[in-house]
């Protein structure tokens, strides 16, 4: 029997980036806010201090910071004709848990999507015809929110993180050294770009020779010490090369821990309860109003936490599952195309090109999560897709996120995977190689979706989430085209040899690709095509808001965190300025 607790004004489910942002915004607005996080408290000095943060075996291989898949996982298949099976070892993506969650172990790559990315359907229809967005059974949509509407909120996240970078389009003026393709920015980055090391510099030079437009990757690994708007402090990155899959030991990577927590944890109207897993959002009998959430703590005790406002800010796979388990919105049916919850699950289409030199010491151990020189010439709709047979694109980055010995030793084509020949190749190439990353978009597709698994259950007896996903021909064509563009730059760097790692065949749960899962709780301009409105508010239960990349109707060729954060701030402002004064739908259906 669940114990009913004292009501709060807002309950936040999941305490990563969006949970922390909403907690800060709503607590500052004076609300009594409670956050429930299923994982443990995590802090720099105790969980990933400099003395042991760079432990590849513990964090990368043994998944120390990630979700324990023996307690809870999801089932996976490529298409409806297969039987989905539980993923018992994380691979393609790494699910976070604990305070800060993915915000602890991300690379710190902070991007804005292009203005055209928010108009995927209408823009491509207009430029390339109606067929361009329905080929291959694509189900792309416009977002219902525009870049211009989100711009101030992108800025807000930059100010929070102290993002290091160089503006390319400041108030409509193209700036030398920045990304000339980006949407109009109203402010320069808070801190200058990270100084580039040798590999990214070579990449930039070669790309420029080919007429491309290289610029430094915008990053949450800071180029200099920074104090943010909440008084929280970050240091300058020391290029240790342990960002993704690791927590930052010296406070130089933007994370909830470094940017929000010192401030919000000190607020008397904010409470965090860790190791409390929300099982379900409870609804009123007419199912139009959430009364609160049910959760279980680490001792197995169950509670009902009444709340006027429910913010779902767990990772998208959990958010979508909670919506399905709670009966909020109509589940998507791939046969009929009706229903919305679980619809348009998408991902990221990754490929790469390895570059091997004889005469150049790249020293990849000097790295950082977003240490890269990038070109955006072939991203989104920055180039003419006429006759190419695909929509979307990718950025191409000469990137050195690190030279971690287990994960990041590159060997040339034809090298055996182990043994003496591998050792020789590894020793010969480790210091003289790096990788060009092709970070591609992933359009939504009629057959790619999320629902509840009919067979497998978690430790609480709840159905697992089932993921049905494969790359479509649109993604393969895009990725091949972009990988060829990356190879051109690689060759222009005059290496001894290169190796193309194309995106081939069906999606597989191994190897690691990115933790950029999107969709399933998508946003849009009406309840027939989306789960939430432009303010991430549920169409069906207006006191429930669903944060995160689940709102993306399809995924752009960028890392999602910047857009996830901008949407969260945009939502927070609407809640504070409109919803609280007049609780109810913020957009009339």
């Amino acid at each position, binding site marked *: 029997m669940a114990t009913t607790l004292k009501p709060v004004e807002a309950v936040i489910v999941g305490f990563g980036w969006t949970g922390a942002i909403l907690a800060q915004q709503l607590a500052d607005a004076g609300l009594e806010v409670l956050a429930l996080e299923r994982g*443990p*408290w995590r802090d720099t000095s*105790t*969980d990933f201090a400099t003395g042991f943060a760079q432990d590849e075996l513990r964090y990368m291989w043994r998944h120390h910071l990630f979700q324990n898949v023996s307690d809870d996982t999801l089932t996976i298949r490529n298409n409806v004709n297969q039987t989905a099976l539980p993923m018992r070892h994380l691979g393609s993506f790494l699910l976070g848990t604990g305070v800060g969650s993915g915000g602890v172990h991300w690379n710190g790559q902070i991007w804005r999507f292009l203005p055209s990315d928010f108009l995927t359907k209408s823009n491509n229809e207009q430029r390339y015809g109606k067929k361009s967005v329905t080929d291959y059974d694509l189900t792309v949509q416009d977002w219902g929110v525009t870049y211009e509407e989100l711009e101030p909120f992108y800025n807000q996240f930059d100010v929070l993180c102290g993002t290091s970078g160089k503006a390319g389009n400041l108030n409509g003026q193209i700036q030398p050294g920045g990304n000339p393709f980006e949407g109009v920015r109203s402010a320069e980055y808070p801190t200058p770009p990270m100084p580039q090391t040798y590999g990214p510099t070579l990449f930039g030079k070669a790309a420029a020779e080919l007429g491309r437009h290289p610029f430094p990757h915008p990053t949450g690994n800071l180029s200099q010490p920074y104090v943010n708007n909440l008084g929280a402090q970050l240091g300058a990155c020391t290029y240790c090369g342990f960002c993704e899959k690791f927590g930052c*030991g010296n406070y130089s990577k933007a994370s909830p821990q*470094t940017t929000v927590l*010192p401030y919000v944890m000190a607020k*008397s109207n904010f409470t965090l309860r860790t190791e409390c897993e929300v099982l379900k959002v409870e609804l009123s009998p007419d199912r139009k109003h959430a009364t609160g959430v049910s959760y279980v703590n680490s001792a197995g005790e169950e509670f009902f936490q009444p709340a006027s406002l429910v913010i779902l800010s767990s990772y998208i796979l959990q958010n979508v599952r909670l919506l399905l388990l709670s009966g909020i919105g109509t589940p998507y049916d791939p046969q009929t195309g009706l229903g919305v919850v679980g619809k348009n699950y998408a991902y990221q289409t990754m490929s790469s090109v390895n570059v091997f030199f004889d005469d150049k010491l790249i020293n990849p151990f000097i790295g950082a999560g977003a240490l890269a020189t990038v070109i955006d010439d072939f991203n989104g709709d920055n180039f003419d897709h006429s006759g190419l047979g695909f929509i979307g694109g990718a950025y191409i980055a000469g990137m050195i996120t690190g030279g971690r010995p287990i994960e990041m030793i590159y060997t040339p084509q034809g090298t055996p995977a182990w043994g003496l020949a591998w050792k020789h190749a590894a020793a010969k190439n480790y210091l003289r190689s790096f990788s060009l990353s092709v970070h591609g978009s992933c359009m939504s597709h009629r057959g790619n979706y999320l629902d509840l698994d009919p067979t497998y259950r978690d430790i609480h007896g709840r159905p697992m989430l089932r993921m049905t996903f494969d790359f479509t021909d649109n993604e393969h064509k895009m990725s091949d085209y972009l990988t060829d563009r990356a190879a051109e730059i690689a060759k222009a760097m005059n290496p001894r040899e290169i190796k193309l790692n194309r995106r081939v065949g069906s999606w597989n749960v191994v190897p690691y690709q990115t933790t950029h899962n999107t969709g399933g709780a998508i946003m849009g301009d009406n309840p027939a095509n989306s789960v939430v409105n432009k303010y991430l508010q549920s169409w069906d239960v207006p006191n429930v808001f669903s944060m995160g990349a689940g709102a993306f109707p399809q995924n752009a060729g960028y890392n999602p965190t910047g857009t996830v954060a901008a949407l969260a701030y945009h939502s927070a402002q609407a809640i504070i300025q409109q919803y609280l004064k007049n609780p109810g739908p913020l957009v009339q259906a």
Partner: protein
Amino acid sequence: MRMLLRVVGVLIVLSLIAGAYFAWSLSHAVALPAGPVTSVAAAKILLEPIADGPNAAQLRQGQYLARLGDCLSCHLRADGEPFAGGLGLNTPFGVIYTSNISSDPDHGIGKWTPDQFYRAMHDGIGGGGQHLYPAFPYPWFRNLSRQDDDALLAYLKTTTPVAYQPPDNKLVFPMNVRAAVAVWNLLPLPPQPGKQTPQGATAEWSRGEALVLGPGHCSQCHTPRNLFGADKQGEAFQGGLLDNFVSPDLTGNERTGLGRWTVDDITEYLHTGRNARAAAGGPMGDVVTYSTSLMTDEDRHAIAVYLKSLSASTDVDVTAADPASMKRGAAVFSDACTACHLENAVGQPTLFPPLGDNAVAQQNDPTGVLHIILAGVRVGPSPTRPSPLTMPSFAWKLTDQQVADVSTYIRNSWGNRASPVTAADVAKLRSTLQLDEVRLTDNSGDH
């Protein structure tokens, strides 16, 4: 003979009390907290606006005195309620638990009369007529006015009552006999403000002196003590030891004191707990969180002006360091310290202190440096700089010899000059701090 025995007896009692007095320690110092840092939330109680009313002025004065007096550093235990006490102060003779000074009538000061409170603040006599242990800084609080005491009590009576009874002290004989404190009270007490005002002293200087010698009770930690726990004559503010942390020299000494600091450096440090030279950790971190960060700019400035007027302590001869130890220490430093303090120990201003020309590093007593390396240290969060930047513990990683070498190296590089450290020094402190078998904290290790 009987007379001699009596004298010896008194001396023994005195030395036991003295030992307890300057060895008392805040129990959180050994293991860094694994949970959220909520101390700023507690401190913010001291910033809550007091509504207009008939005695609002008195209550506001009392609330401000609670900031000046740093009450919450001691009268708040981990995960406890503000003013409810219960923090265990470890002494070689056992544990003293701080009292409940919330407004609760049965467990706190809810029933206290102003006269009772005045006796506690002025004479160290508790509400029940019992002697208070001098961990409670009545030798400094006696310098507050009766009006101040009345205001502070009036404010404390407005705090949320907490029906919490701190545990009984766990002290061995004769320390468990409170009357023994009466003997200690016969010793000279710390100086009173206004007694030795130099010619040309400004009103600001006098305000600073009143704060430092009164509610701030700075010399409780920063003045060395003699065997009996009284101020060492002529060594005021030359630095002491508390909780196995060094409370540094506050005089104008350029090596160990504030000689190189400007008034603004001190003010910034008191305000935010950090500046370009140093960071406030350990007990001083708490002082920043619960007291100095909550003062007015004027009072912080006045304290800085007063401290800058203290003439430099006499420097001591420094033994030269062994070149082999320096070489080993340089290697450890490069490996373990440069991720934050950077090569050449230039640090990152207000984040990670530079270690060159660093007063804490150069204290004559190396205990502070060793403690920081072994146990780690957290910078006190403050309202304007809430980040609890934390140096992790290296006890699990570095051997006694490595800690000794790197400490010797730090104490004798980049312009620093201080006596070398031996592995035996490290072993002793490691044992005192109970870090002999430390491994990564439970929530960070492989398990």
